[in-house]
C-alpha cells in the first residue's frame, strides 16, 4: 500500500503575496477585490476549503509578483478579518501581517440605500463608519449588515 501524497503540491512562488486564513468560500471575493475577475497574466493559485489547523476549513490565495495596496488590504479585511498577508521574497516568508478593518471606509463599499446621495453622480466617495451594528453610511444613516462582499466597490 502506497502512502497518499501529504498534500497537493502547488509550486512555491519566488516573490509575491500569500493571503492565508480566508474564510472558506471567500477566495473568489478576494480575487474580485484584487481586480482579478477573468484571465490574468499573474501566476495565481487558489486553494479553497482546505483543512486549517486553526478553524475548520479555509481558503488561500497566492499571487506571484504582486504586493497589495492598503486599499486592497482594507477591503479584504471586511470579508476576511482573520486573514494573514504573507509577503514572499526569494521563496521565504519575508513579512507577515494580520488585517484590520479601518474605522472609516472611504469609497470602499456601496450604500445599500437606492435613495442615498452617494449612489448618484455627485463628486463624492461613499463614507461608512464601522460600528458593531454594521457599516453605517455617513450620508443617509442606513446600515449595511448583510452581503458586505457584494457591496464592495
Amino acid at each position, binding site marked *: 500500500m502506497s502512502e497518499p501524497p501529504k498534500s497537493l503540491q502547488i509550486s512555491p512562488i519566488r516573490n509575491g503575496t500569500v493571503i492565508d486564513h480566508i474564510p472558506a468560500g471567500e477566495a473568489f471575493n478576494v480575487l474580485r477585490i484584487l481586480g482579478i475577475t477573468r484571465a490574468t497574466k499573474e501566476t495565481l493559485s487558489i486553494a479553497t476549503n482546505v483543512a486549517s489547523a486553526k478553524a475548520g476549513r479555509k481558503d488561500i490565495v497566492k499571487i506571484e509578483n504582486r504586493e497589495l495596496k492598503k486599499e486592497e488590504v482594507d477591503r479584504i479585511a471586511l470579508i476576511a478579518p482573520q486573514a494573514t498577508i504573507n509577503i514572499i521574497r526569494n521563496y521565504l516568508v519575508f513579512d507577515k501581517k494580520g488585517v484590520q478593518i479601518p474605522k472609516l471606509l472611504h469609497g470602499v463599499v456601496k450604500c445599500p440605500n437606492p*435613495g442615498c*446621495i*452617494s449612489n448618484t453622480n455627485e*463628486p463624492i466617495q461613499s463614507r461608512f463608519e464601522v460600528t458593531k451594528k454594521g457599516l453605517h453610511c*455617513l*450620508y*443617509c*444613516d442606513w446600515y449595511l449588515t448583510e452581503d458586505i462582499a457584494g457591496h464592495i466597490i
Partner: protein
Amino acid sequence: MRHIISIKEFEKEDIDALLDRARAIDAGNYDRHALEDRILGVLFFEPSTRTRMSFEAAMARLGGKSIDMGGVETSSVVKGETLADTVRVVSGYADAIVLRHPKEGAARLATEFSSVPVINAGDGAGQHPSQTLIDLYTIRQAMPIDGTDVGLLGDLRYGRTAHSLAYALTNYDVTIHTLAPESLEMPPNVIEDLRERGVEVVEHTDIAEFAHNLDVMYVTRIQRERFPDMASYYAVASSYRVTPELLSGARERMIVLHPLPRVDEIDPRVDALPHARYFQQARNGIPIRMALLQEVMG
C-alpha cells in the same frame, strides 16, 4: 460654521436654547433688522410650498432677503449640474443655504461644498430637523416635555417625521407609544436604538387603549401608494382614523399633532376640540425657523 443637518446632532441644551429663543420671538422679542443685508439661498429640488414659504417668511421677518433658483425645470439641474456644483456656486451668492432635496444625505453632501451654513429642509426619506423642532416646541407650549406619554400613530416605517421626533425625545424623560398598521410598524432597529438611548417604547395594537393613555398623540399620514389598491387603503385608513368619539376617553391635557398636510387621518370634527394643535403647530414654523436662521447667520 454651524450647519443644521440632523436632529441627532443636537444636544439637549441646544434644543432647549433654540426652543427658548423661539418662545421669545413668539412673544415679539426680536430684532426686526437682525438679518438685514443677509441673503438666504433657497434651494428646493422638490416641491414643498409650505416649508419654503415659512423659511422665506421667517427670513423676511428678520429683515433679510431670500433668493431662489426658480423651479427645478428652469434651473441648471436640467442641464445635469451636480448638487455639489450648484451648492458651491450659490454659497458664493448667499449667507446661508436652505436645502430640500429628494436624495437622502444631500444636505450632508452640501456641507462639504458650501462655504456658508446649510440648513436641511428635508432630504428624501431622511432628516428634516426644523420640523422636529416645531413638534417639540408645540409640545412644550402645552406642557413640560419631561414626564409625558407620547404616542406615534400612522406610518411609522417610512414616516421620517415620526422617527426624527422619536430620536429627539430620547433627550427627555418620556415614554414613547407606537401604533401602526401591519407592515408599517416602526423598524425594529429604530426601536432598539430608542431603547438604547434610554426611553421606554411601548408597542400597541388597540387604538382606544393607545389613545386613552397619552399626553401627546402624533399622527402621521398613511400614504395611499403603500397599498396595493384603494380598498385595502381605506380599510386601514378608517381603522386608524382619529375621531371625536375616539378622543372622548383621552386624557384632558392630551394634544393631537400632525405635520400636515393631513388627508383622512384626522376627522375634521376634531379641529374644534381643545386637543387639536396641528394648526398651531404649523404656525410655529415661523418662530422656529426664525430662531434657526439667527442661529446660523446671527
